[in-house]
């Protein structure tokens, strides 16, 4: 699988994402600097986590307006696989590639911890490998992960099976207590209607090898490798 990682000033989980892609696919991803005008032809474009432009104004807002994001949009519009993690998710919502918005966490604090996730949909190209491993622990690290969408939008997400991951408890139950940030309906990740764009707050790239305490983050990349094969 050929992949590209978009790099903006202020992103800081780009190196984590590059390492994860390399480990899973055996290939170094292409690095696309935000100021470059071209995005090479790849199977997967990843917008990684961090604080692009300091998250000043709104998380992801300034990065979303950069020329490179136009290229990402074109890639996604052509049906190209596109993954946004954490700041990447915020950026993809700011561009309109994904619906809704990510607001400040309910408790207003940055939160870094291992939560539990449930794969709600194991048919998207990002999630097929989660079949049989629907609930798993996964790290989060964010200040603005409180997903919001209006009622009509929410209904559309549900109707189209666009909800990829929800926060759950150890046993896979989606409960209020298991919601770390106040996201509507415990939403942790969504796809677009076509299913080729995924945005998620948790960090699968930090859940790839034994040293991370789990490898369930790999399944996203495994799913993608299978999807493009």
């Amino acid at each position: 699988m050929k992949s590209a990682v978009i790099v903006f000033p202020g992103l800081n989980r780009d190196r984590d994402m590059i390492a994860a892609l390399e480990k899973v696919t055996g290939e170094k991803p292409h690095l696309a600097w935000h100021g470059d005008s071209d995005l090479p032809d790849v199977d997967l474009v990843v917008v990684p986590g961090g604080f692009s432009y300091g998250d000043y104004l709104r998380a992801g807002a300034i990065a979303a307006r950069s020329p490179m994001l136009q290229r990402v949009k074109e890639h996604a519009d052509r049906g190209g696989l596109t993954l946004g993690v954490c700041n990447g998710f915020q950026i993809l919502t700011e561009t309109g590639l994904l619906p809704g918005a990510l607001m400040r966490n309910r408790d207003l604090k940055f939160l870094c911890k291992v939560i539990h996730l449930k794969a709600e949909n194991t048919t998207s190209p990002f999630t097929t490998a989660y079949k049989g491993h629907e609930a798993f622990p996964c790290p989060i690290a964010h200040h603005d992960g409180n997903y919001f969408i209006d009622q009509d939008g929410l209904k559309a997400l549900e109707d189209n099976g666009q909800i990829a991951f929800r926060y759950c408890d150890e046993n896979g139950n989606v409960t209020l207590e298991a919601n770390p940030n106040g996201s509507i309906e415990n939403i942790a990740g969504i796809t677009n209607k076509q299913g080729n764009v995924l945005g998620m707050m948790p960090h699968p790239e930090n859940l790839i090898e034994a040293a991370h305490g789990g490898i369930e983050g790999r399944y996203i990349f495994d799913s993608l490798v299978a999807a493009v094969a």
Partner: protein
Amino acid sequence: MHARIFVTLKNGVLDPQGQAIEGSLSSLGFEGVDAVRQGKIFDVKLDETDHEAAKEKLAQMCEKLLANTVIENYSIEIVD
């Protein structure tokens, strides 16, 4: 010319900051606060003399960058 842009959350959008402030105010002993909503101001110094042209330009800035119109409204005031 100086302008001030106000960006506020749309009705119906949950405001965790506003809620937390409400809670804090009441725990600080301030009574009778029914609601608090937090928004943003941008004070912009513009190199433009025509009010209408300025407003037009500022509105575009809001649409393109300063407000997230999925959740926010904006308004513009020319200060001088």
